[in-house]
């Protein structure tokens, strides 16, 4: 009952604060779109050098929006690519496909490679029906001039990004929400009414949680439907993970706000509590790091969320495959929530 009253009040205040609402719902979409555009700027027709491929395939490639340059023979692949500014060379030699990517822009290279695979395999499966000797598409040997096959940036990055923006905005807005209550003295005033500490924490979790749920759903739907992020697994699983992450962000934001005396101090927590999490969320591969650094990653909620999101969105896993990550997130959320009830002891022992 008292919790319901508090939730209602949070809603009333929130709906009168149009700018915060806008920040919560629109800012993540803006930033995601911007990142998307930056990473996918290379929309120019790729140049592909081809040797030994038959006429039909070249036609199919041209149809797939790949500009082909025909070579009789290529002796020095690297030199040809560099001199003629090709994005890749596709060679058919000794009944073996060989693809060499320039890879100066991993995203573009990745996209080209995927397109090639698709076109070649389509072309071959059409051939396969007539000609059993044709090579299956797995047999394209791929080489790179720069980097290697693991430099596929945005695909790995995008699940992390979705998680990060959910985390960041929920953290900021819930933290500042309770902070306002503290600095205006109304939290202390509340403590002179018979409300219980856990009722306050619950009300804040549910009140801001509702906005977090809406924000999460908007961000996920936008990322997948409008920005066309890769989604190998189920969208429901993506939403579940992000909701758990939002709950962690919510409880952490509320908790840290008890150590901030002003909005400005709350913002100071961002470089300490939020930014390091980005580095440990899989943007930089963790395997090569020192053991203690890997251990640091294990105490960061975003590490688990990113791992789970990558699993679902990129690798097409099921919920059962990432249950450890989900449990970790749940533990974080309940841990922070319990700490919150204790942190309010500062105001009243009961």
């Amino acid at each position, binding site marked *: *009952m008292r919790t319901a009253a508090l939730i209602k*009040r949070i809603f009333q*205040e929130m709906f009168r604060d149009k700018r915060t609402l806008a920040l919560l719902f629109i800012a993540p979409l803006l930033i995601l779109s911007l990142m998307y555009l930056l990473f996918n700027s290379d929309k120019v027709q790729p140049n592909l050098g081809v040797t030994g491929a038959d006429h039909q395939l070249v036609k199919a490639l041209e149809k797939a929006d790949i500009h082909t340059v025909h070579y009789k023979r290529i002796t020095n692949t690297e030199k040809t690519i560099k001199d003629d500014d090709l994005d890749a060379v596709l060679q058919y030699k000794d009944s073996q496909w060989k693809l060499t990517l320039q890879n100066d822009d991993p995203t573009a290279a990745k996209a080209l490679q995927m397109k090639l695979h698709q076109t070649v395999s389509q072309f071959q499966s059409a051939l396969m029906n007539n000609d059993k000797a044709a090579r299956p598409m797995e047999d394209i040997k791929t080489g790179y001039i720069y980097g290697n096959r693991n430099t596929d940036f945005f695909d790995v990055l995008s699940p992390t990004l979705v998680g990060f923006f959910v985390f960041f905005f929920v953290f900021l807005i819930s933290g500042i929400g309770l902070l306002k209550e503290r600095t205006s*003295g*109304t939290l202390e005033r*509340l403590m*002179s009414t*018979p409300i219980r500490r856990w009722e306050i924490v619950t009300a804040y979790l549910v009140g801001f949680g509702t906005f977090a749920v809406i924000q999460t759903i908007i961000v996920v739907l936008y990322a997948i439907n409008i920005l066309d992020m890769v989604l190998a697994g189920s969208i429901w699983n993506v939403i579940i993970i992000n909701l758990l992450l939002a709950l962690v962000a919510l409880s952490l934001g509320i908790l840290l706000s008890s150590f901030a005396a002003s909005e400005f101090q709350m913002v100071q927590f961002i470089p300490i509590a939020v930014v390091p999490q980005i580095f440990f969320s899989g943007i930089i591969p963790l395997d090569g790091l020192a053991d203690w650094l890997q251990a640091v990653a294990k105490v960061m909620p975003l590490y688990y969320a990113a791992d789970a999101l990558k699993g679902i969105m990129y690798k097409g896993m099921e919920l059962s495959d990432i249950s450890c990550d989900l449990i970790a997130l749940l533990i974080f959320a309940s841990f922070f929530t319990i700490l919150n009830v204790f942190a309010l002891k500062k*105001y009243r022992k009961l």
Partner: protein
Amino acid sequence: MDYSVEIESVSKSFGKKAVLKEISLNIEEGKIYGFIGPSGSGKTTLVKLMVGMDDPDNGTVHVFKEKVPNLGLLQHIGYMAQSDALYLSLTGKENLKFFASLYKMPKSEAAERIAYAADLVQLTADLNKRVSAYSGGMKRRLSLAIALIQNPRLLILDEPTVGIDPELRLNIWNELLRLKNEEGKTIIVTTHVMDEAERCDLIAMIRDGRILANGTPDELKELYQADNFDEVFLNAGRKSHENSRSN
């Protein structure tokens, strides 16, 4: 005699600074009890201990025979803080409704209490305005109305009439007297306004975290050989200075 509040050798310090030193005091039910004393003497700290918003380092506080802090007691204590703690983006009415819903009260009674409290502080016409558009005095009055919202047996008002014009102040005091006389409520006020102090049944003078003297206004005037209360305040100050020098 029934005591609403019993304070037993309570001490409180913030860090190294001792703010309350061994304070003992009983407050009778159905009386208006005033606290006066210079700024920083510990009045607010003392009334917060009575509400249970802070813990004493030593000693105990009992309200209605129950040890503070106690959640059940808070239903019966109306508290008005020294600084207004209101939700600025909500209207006056929404603030009242919100605080009313934190207490055990049927909906119909809540509506009545809101109307009564708003009328008492003459805010009825402004109830649908947002608090951010209120003047300082209006905010003060809304805080007072909130303190009265659950019809508490004990009212603890920390400088309730700061920033309120003399006419309205008179109204409020008349209502406080009526609440005491007709409804038998116990009212605790802190104040710097000496003519308000004189309207109290009993007064405690606080200085440097100790109760220098307490009694009826007339007793205090006699004790400090003063004609009016301003003199009581000043003479008490002088006396405590001499004491501390001779110590």
